[in-house]
């Protein structure tokens, strides 16, 4: 398989004015540079589903904006489907779809299906093709009942399903999703995850998804790229990510008084057997669970080490 | 009585403060006011040269300033009240020891007064620099300001009344815009009615705008105690009428809320 996205030492620096309002700021502006993305390199193959993870301000949105042709980089380069995004904005548009969870691409007052119709026209789809495509997506994302409602009347979860459909109408090969589950409740998140994954598998869509919810990446993606302060700090499969942190075990025991005792064991220094022996000696155990660390902890640990 | 005044005075003051802090809005107002004064000053200068009457712009630009002080200083109390009624916010006030309507009116007066005074202050300087002299004697100035402020207060009351009509009307905004237009035409918003044809003035006389706008603002260039008296009497009459309507509507509203609970 070929690399559909290539990112090579991509950098983005923002220049911020330091002294704010007032005359002084007008005549003697002092600048401070913020490096949002710092020599970032990675490649993504066709059909991969990649989670793009990092703490607030890590540079995820900035990277996605550069890859989707909204921002120019300061240095470095990138190719998306063989095109340099910021130099081929309109051509690339036909091949990529974007969903920014924080804003809407649907027309606020129009019924959802009219928004879809407009998008179909914007991408120059002919009517038959458009209708076939839409009916498939409507079925897949289960939004038949929402079509007649104006966007403003939709709940956040319903709207997000429609947003994703809107970004898929023109059959993009790549879908950028920037925090698609932000603000959703547990069920709505679950629905979005399932649908996104189902669609991606069915049409072999390449996904690049950012989220602060580690479940999103576990349930949807097969690979994870972690950045911090604009720099790449991890790039491997989800499986490998878990593997490399499996040397920690979370043990929880309940004693006969009903009290729960939690411990974390590092299997490199303490074998599990030894830890269990100690616990058995100390407490009258009625119940015991041994778990791998939750993804949340793994990610935290990675940030901490960086 | 004093207690009531203090109570609503607090809402007035809060809105006044808020208005003062809204620099963007105030500078926008002043900018627009300046443009209007500048353009119409030019117009009356040109006409003045044509007519050999160099005081035309002095008269009409000062008139325009005070007219705009009343018109542009109006906040949108009709919108606020309509929203309150539609959203049921007013039901929350039913068990509080204040009149919901008076509270909103006091707030609107507060915001109006900020714009009115700022435009009055800065606008007077602008107008003075454009025309050189005012068309009135300075000792009457406070009286004129007070009369115009009272007109503005009646104006605000008017739009509060329109807001209350949300009880019966679908779109109060349409009514408000229509009234705005009528006021613009019949009140002589940009040019005093004295230059309009007689048949027109005869119609205008029957509207509240004739006295609340035109007669009152006219004091700027045509001050006499008789004129003042005429404007004051007519304005009071209209005020009584409006207060009557508002009282009726408010009573009706409270009954509705009491029955349906909002």
């Amino acid at each position, binding site marked *: 398989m070929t690399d559909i996205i290539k990112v090579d030492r991509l950098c983005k620096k923002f220049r911020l004015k330091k002294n704010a309002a007032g005359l002084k700021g007008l005549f003697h502006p002092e600048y401070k540079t913020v490096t949002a993305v710092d020599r970032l390199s990675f490649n993504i193959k066709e059909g991969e589903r990649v989670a793009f993870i990092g703490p607030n301000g890590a540079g995820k949105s900035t990277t996605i904006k550069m890859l989707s042709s909204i921002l*120019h980089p300061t240095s470095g380069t990138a190719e998306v489907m063989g095109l340099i995004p910021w130099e081929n904005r309109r051509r690339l548009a036909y091949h990529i779809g974007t969903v920014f969870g924080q804003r809407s691409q649907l027309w606020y007052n129009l019924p959802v299906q009219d928004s879809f119709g407009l998008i179909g026209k914007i991408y120059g789809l002919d009517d038959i093709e458009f209708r076939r495509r839409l009916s498939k997506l409507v079925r897949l994302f289960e939004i038949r009942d929402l079509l007649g409602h104006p966007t403003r009347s939709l709940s956040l979860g319903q709207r997000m399903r429609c947003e994703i459909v809107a970004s898929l109408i023109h059959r993009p090969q790549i879908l950028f999703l920037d925090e698609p589950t932000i603000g959703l409740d547990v069920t709505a998140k679950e629905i979005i995850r399932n649908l996104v994954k189902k669609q991606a598998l069915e049409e072999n869509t390449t996904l690049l998804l950012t989220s602060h919810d580690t479940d999103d990446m576990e349930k949807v993606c097969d690979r994870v790229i972690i950045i911090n302060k604009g720099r790449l700090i991890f790039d491997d499969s989800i499986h490998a990510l878990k593997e490399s942190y499996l040397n920690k075990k979370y043990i929880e025991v309940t004693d006969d008084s009903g009290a729960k005792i939690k411990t974390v064991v590092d299997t490199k220094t303490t074998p599990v057997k030894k830890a269990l022996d100690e616990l058995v000696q100390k407490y009258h155990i009625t119940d015991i669970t041994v778990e791998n660390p939750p993804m949340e902890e793994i990610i935290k640990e990675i940030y901490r080490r960086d | 009585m004093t207690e009531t005044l203090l109570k609503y005075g607090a809402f007035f003051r809060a809105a006044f403060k808020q208005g003062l802090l809204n620099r963007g809005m105030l500078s926008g107002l002043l900018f627009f006011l300046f*443009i209007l004064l500048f353009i119409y000053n030019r117009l009356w200068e040109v006409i003045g040269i044509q007519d050999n009457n160099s005081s035309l712009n002095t008269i009409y630009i000062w008139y325009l300033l005070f007219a705009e002080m009343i018109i542009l200083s109006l906040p949108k109390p009709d919108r606020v009240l309509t929203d309150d009624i539609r959203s049921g916010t007013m039901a929350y006030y039913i068990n509080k020891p204040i009149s919901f309507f008076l509270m909103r009116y006091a707030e609107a007066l507060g915001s109006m007064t900020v714009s009115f005074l700022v435009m009055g202050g800065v606008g007077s300087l602008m107008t003075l620099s454009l025309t050189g002299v005012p068309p009135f004697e300075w000792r009457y100035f406070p009286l004129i300001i007070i009369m115009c402020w009272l007109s503005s207060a009646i104006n605000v009351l008017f739009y509060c009344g329109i807001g209350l009509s949300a009880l019966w009307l679908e779109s109060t905004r349409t009514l408000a815009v*229509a009234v705005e237009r009528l006021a613009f035409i019949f009140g002589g918003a940009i040019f005093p009615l004295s230059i309009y044809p007689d048949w027109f003035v005869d119609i205008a006389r029957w509207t509240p705008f004739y006295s609340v706008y035109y007669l009152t603002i006219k004091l700027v260039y045509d001050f006499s105690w008789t004129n003042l008296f005429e404007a004051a009497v007519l304005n009071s009459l209209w005020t009584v009428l409006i207060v009557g309507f508002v009282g009726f509507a408010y009573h009706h509203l409270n009954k509705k809320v009491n029955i349906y609970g909002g």
Partner: protein
Amino acid sequence: MADDFIKTLKLFFYIQKSHFKTAFLSVGDALSNVVIMLINNLSFIFMWWVIFHNKGSINGWDFSDMLLLNAVMNNAFAIFALFARGIQALPEYIDNGSLDNYLVSPQRPLFMIATSESTFANWGDLLTGLICWILSGYTDLLSFALMIYASLCATAVLISYRLLVSSLAFFAGDTQKLGDNIFMAFITFSSQPASIFTGWYKVMFLSIIPAGFISLIPVMLIKTAALPVFLFLSGAAVLSIVISAAFFRFGLKRYASGNRFGVR
């Protein structure tokens, strides 16, 4: 190229259809807003009638000039408000990031921005334009053709100016209010009898605040049908489009560089 143009035209009509649909969600409101707009405009025209009725003419302008001015100005404003209103919202789009939506679209961003909004009430302006033209008495075929052409040129200048003012937002923070104010001043200037601006005022009237190209020059063209005036107006239209488009493009580049904000 031609194919591209036809496609864009189709898209344009499709977008307008959607705006219509939105407006007609409440038919009563839509129509009453049009009527109110019409009455609003006519009340201004009545006011000018009063002045001209009183004073005869103002620096050589009479009421028929004023009617022609209102025909052109209302047409120009209507076309802007109906088909390019989105330009007015550009600072807001930049501020809340919805500009990104237009940047990832395969259509030209400016086209998408301009057509993104439309205010139905401004059909009332188009009606006003028609009424004013009929009342003006310049109803022969040549005058009609000139009126249409002048209206189109005035539209070009008006939209360009709005674009220029809106594009300021690429360079400074929140300029929505500032832009709205400058544009309102521009509109106010263009709705006065143009003859009152003489000397330096006239220079300003044809440069920084180019309201003269909405009022003075179009009226002159319709009345005189003179070639130099025709060329002057056409030149101004083309020039203003070129300047504002370049400024917009420059701003967009800056936006893409991410260094728009002074302070964040």
